């Protein structure tokens, strides 16, 4: 019996990122069980070594040092999200280690590590804002309001949004950054409404996304608004979605995977069957669309690379990952030189016909109609925003 192949990672299991971290980990665990059921990799079982980084950047350096130097893991996965990932980028570069990224945003742009591969569908940095503004301009949007959380992810989105707007000569009539832990958005929304924007681009964090939508519903946002949303983190999670219910209608927001017919690939359905069952026991997100399948896909890519290179040589694996397109449950994935997706596969989707207090409704198609990218599109934008809300 050969020793198992160890894959090491930290994962936020407490703190602000825990919700995503747990769902992501469950996706990876399902892959591990699948691959082990098939006899493992290179005939060896796969074992995960996972530590909690408490959603904090200051914990991860020591954890990854331990994974590499003490646990002597064979491969590294990154923790969910940007903040915990950022401090380990220089470390893996110095050590020449392969790192599979997990939904972080632009952490490799300054480091330039050539053995980094992000599983997220983000693609080029500006594609995100570009796709939203494409939709907005097509709907007749001429000026933009920007409301962003003072958090790294949202700020990164805001920066690209300002750039893209500038390039396209879209004036920004309102640009506010709100601090974490803001309780009440009524005041902010009143001010935003007073600016009479056509396009409202919101980059918010989970606790705030709900607050913003509530305030929008209560205070109103004005008939001028053609499109609302874009970068609201949180609206991908089942708990938030079922809380907000009908308040979601009309919002156009980014997503990564949705139960629309264009999104099913080889193994996708089987994956969600397993996930749904296990999520209940593990008390994690019951839908798990946003992160879990990408955790699984990360495993699939490693599986393919190891099986075809027939070794655990990290350079070889990196080379394979860089040069091939990979079939996964979230569709084909190909990487560009910086380790991000060659082409963006970040969805923009509009909520429609959502009722209150019902998680199950989100399992059926049509609740979130995909507007972008064209390849995956399942419907057209309803505009203006107010019209799309009923």
């Amino acid at each position, binding site marked *: 019996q050969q020793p198992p192949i160890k894959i090491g990672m930290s994962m936020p299991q*407490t*703190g*602000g990122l*825990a*919700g995503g971290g*747990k769902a992501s980990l469950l996706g990876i665990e399902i892959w591990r069980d699948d691959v082990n059921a098939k006899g493992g990799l290179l005939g060896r079982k796969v074992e995960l070594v996972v530590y909690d980084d408490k959603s904090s950047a200051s914990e991860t350096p020591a954890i990854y040092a331990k994974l590499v130097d003490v646990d002597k893991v064979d491969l590294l996965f990154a923790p969910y999200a940007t903040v915990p990932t950022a401090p380990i980028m220089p470390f893996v570069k110095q050590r020449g280690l392969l790192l599979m990224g997990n939904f972080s945003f632009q952490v490799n742009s300054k480091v330039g590590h050539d053995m980094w591969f992000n599983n997220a569908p983000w693609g080029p940095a500006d594609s995100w804002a570009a796709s939203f503004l494409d939709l907005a301009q097509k709907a007749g949007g001429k000026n933009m309001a920007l409301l962003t959380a*003072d958090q790294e992810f949202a700020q990164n989105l805001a920066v690209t949004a300002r750039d893209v707007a500038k390039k396209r000569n879209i004036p920004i009539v*309102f640009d*506010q*950054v*709100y*601090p*974490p*832990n*803001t*309780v*009440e958005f*009524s*005041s*902010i929304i*009143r*001010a935003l409404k*007073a*600016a009479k924007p056509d396009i409202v681009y919101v980059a918010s964090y*989970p*606790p705030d996304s*709900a*607050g913003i939508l*509530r*305030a929008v*519903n*209560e*205070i*109103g946002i004005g008939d001028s608004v053609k499109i609302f949303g874009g970068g609201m983190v*949180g609206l991908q*999670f*089942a*708990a*938030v979605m079922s*809380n907000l*219910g009908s*308040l979601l209608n009309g919002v156009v927001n980014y997503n990564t995977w949705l139960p629309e017919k264009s999104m099913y690939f080889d193994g996708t359905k089987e994956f969600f069957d397993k996930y749904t069952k296990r999520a209940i026991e593990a*008390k*994690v*997100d019951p839908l798990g669309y946003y992160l879990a399948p990408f955790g699984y896909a990360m495993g699939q890519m490693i599986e393919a690379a190891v099986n075809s290179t027939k070794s655990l040589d990290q350079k070889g694996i990196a080379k394979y990952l860089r040069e091939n397109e990979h079939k996964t449950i979230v569709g084909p994935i190909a990487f560009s030189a910086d380790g991000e997706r060659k082409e963006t596969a970040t969805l923009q989707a509009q909520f429609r016909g959502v009722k*209150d*207090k019902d998680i199950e409704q989100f399992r059926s198609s049509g609740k979130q109609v995909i507007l972008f990218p064209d390849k995956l599109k399942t419907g057209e934008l309803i505009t203006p925003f107010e019209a799309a809300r009923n």
Partner: protein
Amino acid sequence: MFSMDLLLGAVLLGVLLGCFYAAVSVGLSVSFGLLDVPHVAHPAFLVMASYGVYQLNESYDIDPLLAGLAITPLFFLFGLLAYRVYHETFEKRGSDAAVRGIAFFFGIAFIIEVLIILQFGVDQRSVSATYIGKAWRFGEMRIPIRQLVAFAVALALTVLLAVYLSKTFMGRAIRAVAQDEEALRLMGANPVRIKQFAFGIATAVLGIAGALLIIVAPVEPTLDRAYIGRTFCVVVMAGLGSISGTLIAAIILGVAESIVLTLFGASWAPAISFAMLLGVLAVRPQGLLGR
């Protein structure tokens, strides 16, 4: 972008927000302001109450405010128990209970956070009620009804507590107990029982405050950390133990936050409200209505 209308709206919304702050702080004003218990777990208790309300709302469809009222007796008992534990294991022995108490209650707060995570998971939770998500039209203005609810409840709570503390024998004993326990004993009152009872009240109030918290915005297990600064800020700015001061301080804070959010941009809001706290303390080191 400035307009009188916007300013007025900001003030109005700020008053409502302030009342909400008062409601979540007033218990602390008793437990910390009057009893000198360094209750840094107060916000954790608050979040726990919100989860209680959530549970009732979710499984029995009880109105969140009613649910808050329903768990109030439970929280009263919980407060009695919590104080008992604090007292027996701790206060009884240490002369420097105050600083160590901070560490103790931080420990308790961590434990509560984790227990909530184990029971409910890490996702956000919120409740539904007819008045959530609706607004009351007031001329041009639209005021969220959930904020009006917070306003009314906070006002009622503070008035009730203030009257209770100044007009009843028990209330006066509660205000005296931290100043000299032995002397209070000489008055024929058992200081431990008084403190326990007062702590019970301070915790019971959290039942309703917790309902408001989850009515106003969704909660998640570690939300308490965001409220440590805010609640202590309100209580200290008020002047320790002053109930009416708590309401005033909270409203000042709410209005300032709201004005800054509406007119100057949100990213400086926390700096400004806490700078105001420093300003108040610089002029009146004992707080607005402190003695």
